[in-house]
């Protein structure tokens, strides 16, 4: 059996001779069947192609277009910012950023690490990317680094083919040419994050990478941003843009003209020198802010590029807190700078007359109490009326006046000048300060009011807290006859398409009722004598000729004074010295500028702060009038 089987398989011709002709016809039949099957198969396959290419043609055409055509947002150009005289103070400069499209990159983390070969990334680039990625759709690009150096761009472009889905994209980067001089006013733009998207129309920000974080950039974000456009672009499979098919242009943001004058700002900056402090200058005629300086400051351009955690901590922990906007947020005891307002209250409320005189012995006692309240001059000033009381800053006069007026009347009158409430400036984060009253103290401390607190409130000590901005705005109200504006940094705005900038006016918050204009003149005359009077505390800054300056010095106590012990600026350590304050306006006859100055730990207001005010006034009044 096995032998036969072997023979049948391996044997050459163990079988009878084959009939080739018969087998041929059998083969022909099979060949015919095969060909028939071939035809059936090709017809079926062709029908499949008919289905795809004819019946489903429209659907696949759409998908093929969707494949290659991407609709990408086009970020509008951010509005530019100018100062009052048209100097650009926030610009857009051409720059390059590195972007990654998550959808097109298989392993973004590895890709970013590989890119490190060409690009100098901050240490936390991967975490930043992961955070940024969550806010966007997979086919939206995520910026990895802004403001690439020319070298980085050149090195990356050579090896670009290695990184599908990663590209260098030109854009306009925000730049602040004056650096730290204007930081506290302008604020800065920073990378858009999740919190920012909560407060804007996210759809309009799809192509936007930066948003106003603080200052004017934040307050006028809506105006500055503009309206996003869209672009239909053809891309290849790696998402690289090949050409633009269609475009709906974005509408660029409004250009803003601020009421600031860079020269005045610079004068205030220089006058403060390396001392910490703040200067606010306002035009009393329209409430526009001419200068607003807080020192120390920092260069916001680093924040635009994306500041590293280390550099940020360095700024955060620097001495005197450069991030803190003293002009807007710094609360200081107003000290004697409050006296003109208290004096006006006394006159208008009929508590005193211009003729009333008070005798200063250097010490003032409440009836039935033993504790003395001091004048700054040992031995006192003798007989003084309100002019002399302002000129020499006689505490005793205002002690008596406050006592006669009472805290609540004082509170109600001073509040009309904006003490104790936000001025309404067009910046966020304003400190409202404190203007004490019985009710306030009960609410704040649950304690009754003591008469002693009334008399120190009358000289701006005790609970009183005011910001430099509030002081300047209150003085502007006093100077212009009672019109309290919500001061404005924005002077005018120019929208895309507008030929000319539209003036924006500061809103009037309150019109302080005037009982007798003569009372106001009395107080102003008292302030003039502070600078021009024979015994004026700020005689040192009076101009020899030309215009006259009116002002008032003040000292804010940092450490409570022990009974009559006078602080000596030269012997007291700088940190414990009082803050020096000065408020002033000029020209006396036709006021064009009011200034409030605070020099932290400066000691006496007349010596340290008044010259700063003088410098600011000079820089404004010595310029050619605008238009």
């Amino acid at each position, binding site marked *: 059996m096995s032998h036969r*089987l072997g023979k*049948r*398989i391996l044997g*050459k*011709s163990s*079988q*009878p001779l*084959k009939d*080739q002709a018969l*087998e*041929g016809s*059998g*083969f*022909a039949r*099979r*060949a015919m069947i*095969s*060909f028939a099957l*071939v*035809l059936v*198969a*090709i017809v079926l*396959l*062709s029908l*499949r*192609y*008919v289905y*795809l*290419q*004819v019946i*489903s*043609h429209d*659907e*696949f*055409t759409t*998908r*093929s277009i969707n*494949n*290659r055509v991407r609709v990408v947002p086009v970020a509008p150009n951010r509005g530019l910012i100018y100062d009052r005289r048209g100097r650009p103070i926030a610009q857009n400069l051409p720059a390059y950023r590195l972007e990654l499209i998550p*959808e097109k990159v298989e392993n973004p983390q590895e890709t970013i690490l590989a890119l490190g070969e060409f690009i100098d990334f901050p240490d936390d680039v991967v975490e930043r990317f992961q955070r940024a990625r969550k806010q966007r759709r997979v086919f939206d690009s995520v910026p990895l680094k802004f403001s690439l150096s020319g070298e980085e761009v050149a090195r990356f472009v050579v090896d670009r083919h290695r990184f599908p889905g990663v590209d260098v994209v030109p854009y306009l980067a925000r730049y602040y040419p004056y650096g730290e001089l204007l930081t506290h006013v302008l604020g800065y733009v920073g990378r858009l994050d999740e919190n920012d998207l909560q407060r804007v129309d996210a759809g309009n920000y799809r192509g936007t990478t930066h948003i106003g974080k603080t200052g004017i950039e934040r307050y006028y974000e809506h105006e500055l941003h503009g309206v996003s456009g869209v672009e239909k672009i*053809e*891309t*290849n*499979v*790696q998402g690289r843009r*090949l050409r633009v098919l269609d475009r709906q242009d974005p509408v660029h943001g409004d250009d803003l003209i601020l009421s600031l004058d860079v020269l005045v700002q610079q004068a205030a900056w220089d006058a403060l020198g390396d001392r910490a402090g703040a200067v606010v200058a306002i035009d009393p005629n329209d409430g526009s802010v001419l200068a607003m300086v807080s020192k120390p400051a920092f260069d916001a351009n680093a924040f635009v590029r994306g500041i590293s955690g280390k550099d940020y901590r360095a700024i955060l922990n620097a001495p005197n807190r450069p991030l803190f906007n003293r002009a807007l947020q710094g609360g200081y005891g107003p000290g004697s700078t409050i006296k003109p307002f208290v004096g006006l209250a006394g006159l208008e409320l009929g508590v005193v007359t211009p003729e009333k005189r008070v005798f200063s012995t250097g010490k003032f006692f409440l009836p039935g109490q033993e504790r003395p309240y001091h004048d700054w001059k040992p031995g006192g000033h003798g007989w003084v009326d309100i002019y002399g009381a302002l000129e020499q800053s006689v505490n005793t006069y205002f002690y008596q006046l406050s006592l006669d007026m009472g805290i609540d009347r004082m509170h109600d009158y001073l509040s009309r000048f904006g003490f104790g409430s936000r001025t309404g400036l067009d910046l966020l984060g304003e400190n409202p300060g404190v203007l004490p009253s019985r009710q306030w103290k009960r609410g704040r401390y649950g304690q009754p009011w003591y008469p002693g607190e009334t008399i120190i409130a009358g000289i701006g000590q005790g609970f009183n807290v005011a910001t430099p901005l509030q002081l300047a705005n209150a003085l502007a109200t006093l100077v212009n006859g009672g019109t309290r504006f919500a001061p404005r940094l924005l002077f005018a705005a120019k929208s895309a398409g507008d030929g000319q900038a539209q003036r924006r006016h500061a809103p009037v918050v309150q019109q302080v009722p005037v009982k007798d204009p003569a009372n106001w003149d009395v107080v102003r005359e008292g302030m003039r004598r502070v600078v021009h009077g024979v015994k004026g505390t700020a005689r040192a800054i009076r101009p020899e000729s030309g215009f006259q300056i009116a002002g008032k010095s003040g000292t804010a106590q940092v450490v409570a004074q022990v009974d009559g012990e006078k602080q000596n600026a030269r012997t007291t350590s700088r940190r414990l010295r009082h803050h020096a304050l000065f408020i002033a306006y000029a020209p006396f006859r036709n006021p064009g500028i009011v200034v409030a100055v605070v020099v932290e730990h400066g000691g006496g207001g007349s010596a340290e702060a008044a010259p700063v005010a003088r410098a600011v006034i000079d820089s404004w009044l010595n310029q050619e009038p605008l238009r």
Partner: protein
Amino acid sequence: MKRVLPGWVKWPRLDFPLLVSLLLLMGFGLLVLYSASGQDMSVVYRQAIRLAVGLAVMLLLSQVPPHILRLWTPWLYSLGMVLLLATWFFGVGRSTSRWLDLGLFRFQPSEIMKLGIPMMVAWYLHPRRLPPDLLNMLVSIAIVLAPVLLIAQQPDLGTSLLVAASGGLTLFLAGMRWRFILVAAGLAAAAAPALWFVMHEYQRNRVRTFLDPESDPLGSGWNIIQSKIAVGSGGILGKGWLNGTQSNLEFIPERHTDFILAVLSEEFGLVGVLALFTVYVYITGRGLYIASNARNTYARLLAGSLSLTFFVYVLVNGGMVSGTLPVVGVPLPLVSYGGTSIVTLLAGFGILMSIYGHRNFIR
């Protein structure tokens, strides 16, 4: 035919209708390749060289009489088996061991078996009475299965199935009885679920993807989806040569190799596809005609099997590109770029021409 050449130079034994249709196919293929390669002439040149080499091999083999081929058959088959075994032990390749590095060049031994299997089955059945009885059929199946299993383990499921098909087609043409065919078909259907468990994960993924490409549109479903988009967006007349967006923007993967038909469909539309199919069917039909006119069993079976296998490639590739069949790495014959497959295919057509040229020899 009037002799213009000296007597010792014989006019080569060529089948002109076959030659012309093959050249037509190649020309069209090069045209599409130019577009599919992103208009890279160097790719076209390399393909042209490969085609020229294939044509030379075809010319050479067409002059070898079938009875000589029949004598070589066991040796060729044995060589293929040895190389397959060698690949098993020393194969190179990224994830699969299909390639054998011979120092000068690398090639896939499975290519030899594309010719070796039908030749060997034809060789075995040639002296035996047809239709084959059960025993001869079992032996034939063994001849087919041995290399098929070796190729399948490489793993190269696509090629192993195609090579198995070439053996099966030989048996079919040999007159395999219908009841056997039904039993074999039944066994295959029963074995299909079992196949799932021996498949590699990537092969299973391909099947899953084939069943539902949209489940992973950016991953394994990408090829099928993009290919279908290319075909469908081509429409009746196509987007025009060099104007296919799917191919020029590189959405079609393997656009100049396995998926070149997608490029053709996109740029030349249904008209181009049907023209191409017509040429393929004509070549297949011509092959079957040659087979029917052959004078002995070996030549008949071999010619018929080679023609039908050629068509199966077309069918599988066309099915894959249109999303009708799973993605298996089967090139579009003589059009797809590269590979030893061009030489193998043209060698097959050389054998066909030899069979046609020597049809009047009785041996």
